[in-house]
């Protein structure tokens, strides 16, 4: 399973209707799909839940990436299938494999179509997180800011990581040689510079933040705001309905696997 599976979870910045959905509504949709998929093992239901996301993926124009990530996840799916094949009926194996693919697809869909920015804004609106943030860090938006900054720094740190590896290899460091112990020790000259670069960068960013008036005595007013559109309410309604229905059915009926 190569790192390319991570591509299926990376945000792709496009402007599709799916991208424009409020992240909170999308998240509830994700819950709305996960709940029935965890409660039931009915193959038709699982397959249906998986297939219902395909049009969403298509509208979001992320189908190709999703297929790539599925292919990379083949190994794990096969493993799940095989293990269950030998420990239960065939239908179970199929159902559980389907469930794994379903969960992967749902999260993949969510992360590919929701910008980290919007995620940050959504997190910022959650009352509990604001409370926690105020208790812990002093400002209600500190936690969501930490999140967005972390995401912003990922590509930058990736470049730095590559540079450090290049620089140390140019000093004769061979990362693919030696026994396990030696290999682990060989990562010290990679990790220490990275750590220090991260610290230095954080300090510089903090300085820049303060130089731009953070945190401001009146608190922060965000230029962008998440607002629910009618379609979001629709999605919220459907998801909530689905969750409630799932629980009700679960407690009143026994739904077979096939």
């Amino acid at each position: 399973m190569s790192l390319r599976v991570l591509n299926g979870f990376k945000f792709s910045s496009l402007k599709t209707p799916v991208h424009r959905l409020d992240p909170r509504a999308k998240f509830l949709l994700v819950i709305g799909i996960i709940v029935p998929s965890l409660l039931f093992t009915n193959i038709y239901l699982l397959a249906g839940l998986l297939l219902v996301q395909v049009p969403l993926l298509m509208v979001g124009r992320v189908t190709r990436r999703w297929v790539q990530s599925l292919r990379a996840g083949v190994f794990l799916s096969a493993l799940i299938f095989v293990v269950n094949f030998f420990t239960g009926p065939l239908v179970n194996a199929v159902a559980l494999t389907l469930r794994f693919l379903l969960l992967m697809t749902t999260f993949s869909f969510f992360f590919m179509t929701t910008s980290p920015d919007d995620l940050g804004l959504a997190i910022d609106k959650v009352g509990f997180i604001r409370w926690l943030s105020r208790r812990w860090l002093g400002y209600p938006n500190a936690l969501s800011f930490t999140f967005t900054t972390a995401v912003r720094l990922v590509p930058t740190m990736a470049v730095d990581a590559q540079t450090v590896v290049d620089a140390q290899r140019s000093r004769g460091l061979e990362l693919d040689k030696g026994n396990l112990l030696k290999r682990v020790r060989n990562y010290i000259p990679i990790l220490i510079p990275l750590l220090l670069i991260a610290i230095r960068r954080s300090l510089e960013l903090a300085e820049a933040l303060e130089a731009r008036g953070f945190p401001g005595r009146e608190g922060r007013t965000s230029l962008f705001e998440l607002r629910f559109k009618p379609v979001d309410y629709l999605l919220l309604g459907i998801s909530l309905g689905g969750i409630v229905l799932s629980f009700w059915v679960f407690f009143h009926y026994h739904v077979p696997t096939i």
Partner: protein
Amino acid sequence: MGENGAGKTTLAKQLNGLLKPTLGRVTVDGDDTAKKSVAQLSRKVGIVFQNPDHLLFSETVREEVGFALKNFGFEPGVVVKQVERTLEALDLAHYGDTSPFLLSGEERKRVALAAVLAWEPDYLILDEPTIGQDYQQKERLRNFILQLNSQGKAVVMVTHDVEFVAECNPKVVLMSKGQIVAQGQADEVLSDDGLIEKASLVKPQMAKLFSQLSEFGFPRDVVDVHRAKMLLQERLSEVRVRVAQSS
């Protein structure tokens, strides 16, 4: 030389095998880089990266400078000697037992340089060595580079510091958009309007000055202050004599 993104660092990385060509070949002393590892090629080709923080990780400067020597399999006795020699040469001996992280920016740059010079590679590549340095620090660097070169080492500088290059007057390879657009002596290349334009650089002050004095018959390829002075000196003395004679 060339603008940011011209491909200078990419080309430099081809020279020690960090990057391998997708078309064509790179050879170092006759060896095809595609067939050798980075560790093997680095014995001959040392790259000093732009930001010393990408290298530094040891507890003391001594350990830092000795790191590559240990990787290349030098004997402990040799390692100690080479480290001391290099520290002396770069005026870092008094920092031998200091943590490299406690040093100033320019000192850390020198430690990075020492870390590469320690194994005395035949070809030394410096990636943007003058960034953030004041004039005195650049002077010291320039003298050091010229000294290294006079000792027989090949020195390749990746830089866009035109004035610094003008003072060293080396051979210059100009790149733009991934291609080499010119090769030649610094004074020829850096005084050529067309080439400067292509590589998105600016002309050194002397070259700019002399291109505005071309009507007086001065050569255009002047980048060095002292040569400029001598050329002007002749003419201005003539003028002075003529003025004296006519009065």
